[in-house]
């Protein structure tokens, strides 16, 4: 066969065409920006002519590298301390998330606990809600007078003044991040526990092994690789968290890498920020490599999977009622109570005064008044809120459509061409954005697309840029969902269509997609929800014309207009929950399918 023929033969298969296009465009969208970022760490930016003495814009300089890594006290405060804080906070949050998520997963899948449907539905809430939801709730409850001015609900109710370390800084950040990512760990570990072959445990029961022994010698070793992999994924998510440390850390000057990144990119020395983004990407990639290695090892374990029909539940005996009640109470506490505090906070006029006469509808339906906030009307009368809401929904729908569709195609093509080098290249490229902390990812898109590049005009400030960054960032979720859907689908089904001569796109839309509808739709749902509640990814790229609800909330919060912020937060949470429930009920798609598989 000549080369030409070989190429023609290669491209006759639709999945090869898809793979080639994806490989080129993903390389362009993930690897090329990295080069651009690298360049940004060694040039003088407009605002840096103030600090890099005698330089012109665009000059080559190693000033940023020197300042960030080896300038004594400055580097210490600028980089090393925040780095250490990041690692510390992420580690502890991971432990909480995995302990809690894993524990609940075990109770739900393996024990005879009561009220499982309620627990498993509501326990996911904190993950569906924006990550700062719990952070804001924490402040609503525990802020103290010393640095937060008006004391929070807790102090108002009990009269006990909270300590600074309790109200702000590392401790609340760890707790809040841990709670936020516990559902994530629950979904991942729960998936493994559910699919685990119960025969081994049953064999142990028959051999009269004790419960504890079964747990420690059989269950744990089997789920261990999954737990480790969960640990790494949660760690990298915690590392890239921005909103939570921004809300809870600033009052006590507690900095992590993401908050430093935001400060430097918006301040006099964006060069510092680009270097920090690079560091975060390096850590993220390192984590991925370890994760791949662990998952690679797990393959040897998957030989024991294959669902057993009758899983015997562990009997909690006397503890059944107390554990069930405690868990229901706890789940309500972290998922429902925060919403109640937002509602309360959005209705009070003078801060810290929770008496009835201080209640007001000003921040919902009031007319603007210069002596409260900046004269902005209540959020239901505010045209900018509707603009932001419309932008949020528009952006999320478009991003979900693009990411979901590309993800489905990726899943299709990768599974079809399984085992080829091109397929694994595309698979890795599609997963790569997952490892990049959102803020770092946004930073590289900022550096790459803020100016004219090749044939692409400057995209800064455009809706297209937000769509692009969102779609690429959430592609991993969608491609995972797509791959899972395809793996469950036997090849013969498509081949049957092929034999009868049905064209490719018809096979996709009439056969493959309908059969695996709920799995594919999950690939659309997760990007949609993530996008609705995303802050870190957009906060650097947004311009006033295309602001979204989350960035508006962040702004209100920074300005100290807490009532507006609480009201908007409530709005976002309700929208996300309603969308999630409706889509879930109507199509059977659910977010756990996108992550856990």
């Amino acid at each position: 066969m000549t080369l030409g023929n070989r190429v023609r033969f290669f491209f006759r298969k639709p999945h090869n065409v898809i793979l080639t296009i994806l490989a080129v465009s993903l390389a362009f969208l993930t690897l090329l920006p990295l080069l651009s970022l690298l360049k940004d760490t060694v040039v003088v930016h407009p605002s840096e002519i103030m600090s890099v003495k005698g330089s012109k814009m665009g000059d080559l300089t190693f000033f940023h590298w020197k300042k960030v890594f080896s300038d004594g006290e400055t580097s210490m405060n600028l980089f090393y301390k925040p780095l250490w804080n990041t690692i510390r906070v992420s580690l502890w949050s991971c432990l909480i998330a995995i302990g809690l998520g894993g524990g609940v997963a075990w109770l739900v899948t393996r024990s005879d606990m009561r009220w499982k449907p309620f627990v498993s539905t509501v326990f996911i809430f904190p993950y569906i809600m924006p990550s700062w939801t719990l952070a804001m709730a924490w402040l609503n409850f525990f802020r103290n007078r010393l640095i937060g001015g008006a004391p929070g609900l807790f102090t108002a109710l009990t009269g006990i003044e909270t300590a600074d370390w309790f109200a702000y800084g590392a401790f609340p950040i760890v707790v809040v991040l841990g709670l936020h990512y516990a559902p994530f760990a629950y979904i991942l570990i729960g998936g493994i526990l559910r699919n685990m072959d119960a025969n081994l445990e049953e064999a142990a029961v028959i051999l009269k092994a004790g419960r504890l022994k079964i747990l420690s010698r059989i269950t744990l070793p089997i789920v261990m690789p999954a737990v480790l992999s969960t640990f790494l994924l949660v760690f990298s998510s915690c590392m890239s968290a921005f909103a939570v440390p921004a809300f809870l850390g600033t009052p006590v000057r507690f900095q992590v890498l993401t908050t430093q990144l935001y400060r430097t990119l918006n301040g006099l020395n964006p060069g510092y920020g680009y270097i920090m983004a690079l560091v975060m990407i390096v850590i993220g990639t390192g984590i991925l490599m370890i994760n791949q290695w662990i998952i690679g090892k797990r393959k040897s374990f998957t030989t024991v999977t294959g669902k057993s029909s009758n899983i015997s539940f562990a009997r909690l005996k006397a503890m059944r009622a107390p554990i069930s009640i405690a868990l229901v109470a706890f789940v309500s506490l972290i998922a429902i109570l925060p919403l109640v505090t937002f509602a309360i906070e959005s209705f009070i006029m003078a801060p810290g005064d929770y008496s009835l006469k201080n209640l007001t509808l000003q921040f919902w339906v009031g007319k603007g008044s210069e002596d409260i906030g900046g004269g902005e009307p209540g959020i239901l009368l505010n045209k900018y809120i509707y603009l932001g809401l419309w932008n949020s929904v528009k952006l999320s729908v478009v991003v979900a459509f693009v990411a979901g569709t590309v993800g489905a195609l990726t899943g299709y093509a990768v599974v079809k061409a399984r085992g080829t080098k091109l397929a694994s290249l595309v698979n890795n490229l599609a997963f790569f954005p997952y490892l990049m902390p959102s803020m770092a990812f946004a930073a590289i898109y900022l550096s790459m697309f803020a100016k004219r590049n090749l044939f692409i005009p400057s995209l800064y400030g455009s809706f297209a840029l937000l769509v692009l960054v969102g779609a690429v960032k959430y592609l991993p979720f969608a491609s995972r969902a797509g791959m899972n859907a395809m793996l469950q689908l036997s090849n013969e089904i498509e081949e049957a269509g092929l034999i009868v001569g049905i064209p490719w796109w018809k096979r996709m839309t009439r056969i493959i997609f309908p059969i695996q509808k709920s799995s594919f739709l999950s690939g659309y749902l997760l990007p949609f929800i993530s996008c609705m509640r995303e802050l870190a990814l957009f906060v650097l790229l947004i311009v006033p014309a295309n602001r979204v609800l989350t960035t508006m909330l962040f702004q209100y919060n920074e300005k100290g207009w807490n009532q507006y912020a609480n009201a908007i937060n409530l709005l976002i949470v309700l929208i996300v929950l309603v969308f999630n429930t409706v889509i879930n009920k109507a199509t059977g798609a659910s977010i756990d399918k996108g992550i856990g598989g």
Partner: protein
Amino acid sequence: MKKQMIIVALLTATAMSVFAMGTKEGSSGAAPAEKAMTHDELVAAARAEGKVVVYSITSRIAGAATEFEKLYGIKVEASNLKDGELIEKVSKEVGGGIQGADFVICQDSGRVYGQLIAPGFLTNYVPPSMKSIIPAQYQNPLTFQLINKVFIFNSERSTAPVIKNVWELTEPKWKGLVQFKDPKAEGVNANFLTMITSPEWSAKLDKAYQDLYGKKLALTTKNAGYEWIKRFFQNGLVLGNSDTTISENIGIKGQPQTTMGLFVYSKKRFDAKKNLALEPMTEVAPFSGFIYPAFVMLTKNAAHPASARLFIEYLLTAEGFKPWSKDVGSYSSNPTIPVNDDDQPVSFWATRLVPEDPQYLFENRAAVEEFVNNITY
């Protein structure tokens, strides 16, 4: 394998061309050569455009926008941004040839000069009707208003000033009771700190120390300005993210100890509605706070230049300035607009507050920021 090779080659090629291209792609925005239009012509042109976009560091632009819309039927998209954010956005938008704001109200003079005016991203426009009214010193760049931040304390117990000298704030009795907005969060605050390290102000601080304690100041830093910053920050200074929050923290009634802060004087307007007790101090040696300008300027590539000009003119009239003039702490560059009855004129404040010097700021701000960063975090 071959395919991968091709991909790699393609990638390298694209990457190379990115760097080769550089960034020289200034798009020429709409900036029609203007002849002196009459006011009516301007209104007609503005109505034809039908819309104007403004970025502003003051949130009260929203109120002015509503009135302007009512008056001329021109739609306003107003956005309130932080000062550094505004500078970054405008330099990226105008530099990238993107249509964003038509005009801006910006502050942080050192950065505005260096990053926005020097590269020509902003152009100055003084309405013809204002040329003879606004003092020459405020005309290039056109100052919209002056804003002051002063030492304000909780006056629930007594309205008598609680300090006479700024060095008192470095004493243990004020530990943890003073609040100030994070200089990283707002450029003008970093500017104030930078200004007091200047030879002029550090000499004044040096003298104030001697007047208060009757002995020479022992330096551990470069000069008295740096020394005061260091001791001020290390005395448990509480850094806030917003002057609004700080005003609430300071003004809220029923506090066990008297607190104070250095924040925008105009927040005193919250007193009644939010039940706060705030009182400014004006006789502190050697300064009672600082004062800085907010400029109003057109962007180079304004899409609605006529509407922007009309709005700028409107903002400089007594009516357009109402959202600001009805409270204390805002001073129009138009001297015919009287200051609020409860306030003092700029001439009163000028002798009591630290002003901005763009040149000095441009040269020294980075060093002071680094110094502050090191003693703060």
